[in-house]
C-alpha cells in the first residue's frame, strides 16, 4: 500500500508545553488508522497541525508533497477533510446548506447538487435536509458535520472522537458508516477515539500517544500487548 500521509518530527509548542512532541508516523492509503491516548495527550492538537489550523515545526507530506505550510482551506482542497470533537455545524443554515459549504468551497466539481444529494443519501439525512442545523439532535449534528466533510470528496478524512456522547445504537450505526466510507468510497480514515473496543475493532493499525509523544504503533493486537501502553493508558484489565 502506498503511503498517503507521512509526518516527520512534527512538534507544536504552546509556550513551554510541547503538546505534540517530535511525532513521526506514516498512514497507508485506504487504511483506518486509529489514534488513542489519555486526555491532553495532544491528539486534537495533532489534527489541528495536519489540517493547517496550527502551524508547528517538522514536515508533513501528503502523497509525497509538503502540506505543512498550507492554510486550512488549501489543505482541504488537497483532499484532506476533518470533523471536530465538539460537533460544530453551521447552526443558522439548513442541513442541505451545511453540506453545500463542503460541496461548493471544498470541491472543484461542477456537479454540486448531485454531490449534496448523494451525501445526504449516504448519511441518511435526505428527509431532514431542510431543518436548520441548530435544531438537530446530537447524532444528526455529527452526521451533518461528517456529510459536509464528505462533500469535499476527500481522499483522507480525520475524525476527532466521532462517537463521543452517542448511544450504543448510534455508535453501531456510526461504525457501519465509517466502514462504508472506507470500503465504498475508498477514503483513508485517521480516527481519534477513547472507546478502545470500538477503535480496536475498526482500525487496521493504531498509534498511542502520551504527552505529545508516540509510545506505540502497530496492529490493535500489538498495541494491546504493549507494556507501556497498558501502564499509561489501558490499565491492567487489558493485560
Amino acid at each position, binding site marked *: 500500500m502506498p503511503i498517503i500521509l507521512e509526518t516527520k518530527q512534527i512538534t507544536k509548542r504552546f509556550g513551554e508545553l510541547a503538546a505534540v512532541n517530535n511525532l513521526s508516523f506514516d498512514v497507508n492509503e485506504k487504511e483506518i488508522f486509529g489514534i488513542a491516548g489519555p486526555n491532553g495527550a495532544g491528539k486534537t492538537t495533532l489534527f489541528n497541525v495536519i*489540517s*493547517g*489550523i496550527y502551524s508547528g515545526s517538522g514536515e508533513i507530506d501528503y502523497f509525497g508533497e509538503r502540506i505543512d505550510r498550507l*492554510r*486550512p*482551506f488549501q*489543505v*482541504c*482542497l488537497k483532499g484532506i*477533510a*476533518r470533523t*471536530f470533537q465538539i460537533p*460544530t*455545524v*453551521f*447552526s*443558522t*443554515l439548513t442541513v442541505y*446548506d451545511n453540506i*453545500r*459549504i*463542503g460541496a*461548493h*468551497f*471544498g*470541491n472543484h466539481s461542477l456537479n454540486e447538487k448531485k454531490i449534496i444529494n448523494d451525501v445526504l443519501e449516504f448519511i441518511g439525512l435526505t428527509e431532514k435536509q431542510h431543518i436548520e442545523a441548530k435544531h438537530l439532535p446530537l447524532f444528526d449534528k455529527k452526521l451533518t*458535520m461528517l456529510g*459536509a*466533510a464528505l*462533500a*469535499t470528496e476527500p481522499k483522507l478524512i480525520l475524525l476527532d472522537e466521532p462517537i463521543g456522547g452517542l448511544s450504543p445504537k448510534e455508535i453501531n450505526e456510526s461504525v457501519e458508516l465509517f466502514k462504508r466510507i472506507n470500503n465504498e468510497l475508498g477514503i483513508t480514515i485517521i480516527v481519534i477515539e477513547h472507546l478502545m473496543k470500538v477503535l480496536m475493532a475498526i482500525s487496521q493499525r493504531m498509534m498511542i500517544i502520551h504527552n505529545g509523544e508516540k509510545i506505540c504503533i502497530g496492529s490493535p493486537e500489538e498495541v494491546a500487548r504493549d507494556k507501556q501502553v497498558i501502564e499509561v493508558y489501558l490499565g491492567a484489565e487489558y493485560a
Partner: protein
Amino acid sequence: MVNNLLKNLSRIGLLLLLAILPILFHDNDHIMNIIILCLIWGVVAASWDLILGYANLFSFGHLSFFVIGGYASGLLAKYIGLTPWLGYIAGGIAAAIIGFLIGIPCLRLKGMYLAIVTFSLNFVLPTLIVWAGPGKFENFSTGGSWGLTRIPAPSLFGYVFTRQELVPWYYLSLGFFIMFLSIIYLIIKSNIGLAFIALRDAEPQAKSLGVNEYKYKLLVFALSAFIAGSAGAYYASYFSLISPASMNLDVFLIVLVMVLFGGLGVFPGAAIGAFIITIVNELLRPTLEWRLVILGTIVILTMMFMPKGIMDILALLGRLMKRILNIRRSSKSTPA
C-alpha cells in the same frame, strides 16, 4: 402556506405603501425629507449589517466609508465635472478600495481588537479631511471643517433634481433603496453570503471545508464599503453637502442603534431599524441632549429582551397572525 401568504401580502402592502407615500405627504417638505433620509439610512444600515451581522466582523468604521463615498463623488463632480450618476459608482469604488485596504491589517484581528482598529477611522478621517481643506489644495479642496458644499444634484432627461421638489427625490431614493437592498439580498443568498455565514457560525470548520477566510473577509469589507460609499455619494448630492460632521459620534451611534434595533444578521431588519430609528430620532428632537440617553436605553432593552431586534417582534406577530387565521379556519371547517 399561511406563512408564505402572510409574507407575500405584507411585502406587497409595504411596497404599495412606499409607492403612494408622496400622495399623503407631498406638500409637507419636512416629512418628505425624513422619509428620504429613512431610505438612505436604510441602505447604510443594511450594508453595515452585511459585515457586522452576516460576517460577524466588528467593523466600527463603517460611516467613514459613507463619508469617503460622499467626498470622492463630490470632489469629482465639482472639480472634474463628473455626472452625479457616475459619482454614485465612483463614490462606491473609492470606499471599496479603502475598505479593502483597511481589511488587510484586520484579517488576523477579531472581536474587540478589530473594533478598536476600525473605530480609529472615525478620528483619523475627519483630521485628514480638515487637513486637506482650503489653503492646502486650491483646486481639489475638501472644504475643511465646513465641508464640501454645492455638490451638484443629478439630472434626468433634462430635469434637474432640486431641493424645492422633494417628490422626484423621493422616488429616486426609493429606486436607490430597492436596488441596493436587492443587491444585499442577492449577496446574502449567493455562495458569497454562504461563505460569510459559514465563517460566522463556525470559522475553523468553514476553513477546513475549503472556505478561504482571507478572501471572503476582504470581500465583505469591500462590498459593504462600496454600498455605504455609494449611499454617501447619494446623500452628498441630495444635500449638496458632505462634511466631517457626517461621521460625528452621535451619527455613528444612531446608525449603530438602527442596526442593533433592526436585528443583527436578519435581513431586512437593519433597514426596518433605520426607518424606525430615523423617525424616532426626529420625534425626540424636542428632548435635546436626552435624545442619546433615550436611544441608548432602547439599545440596552433591545439587547436584553430581543437580541434579534425588531425581527423578534415581527416573528412574534407573524406567529400570532398565523394562530388567529388557523383558529378561524378550523372553526369554519368544523361542522355545526
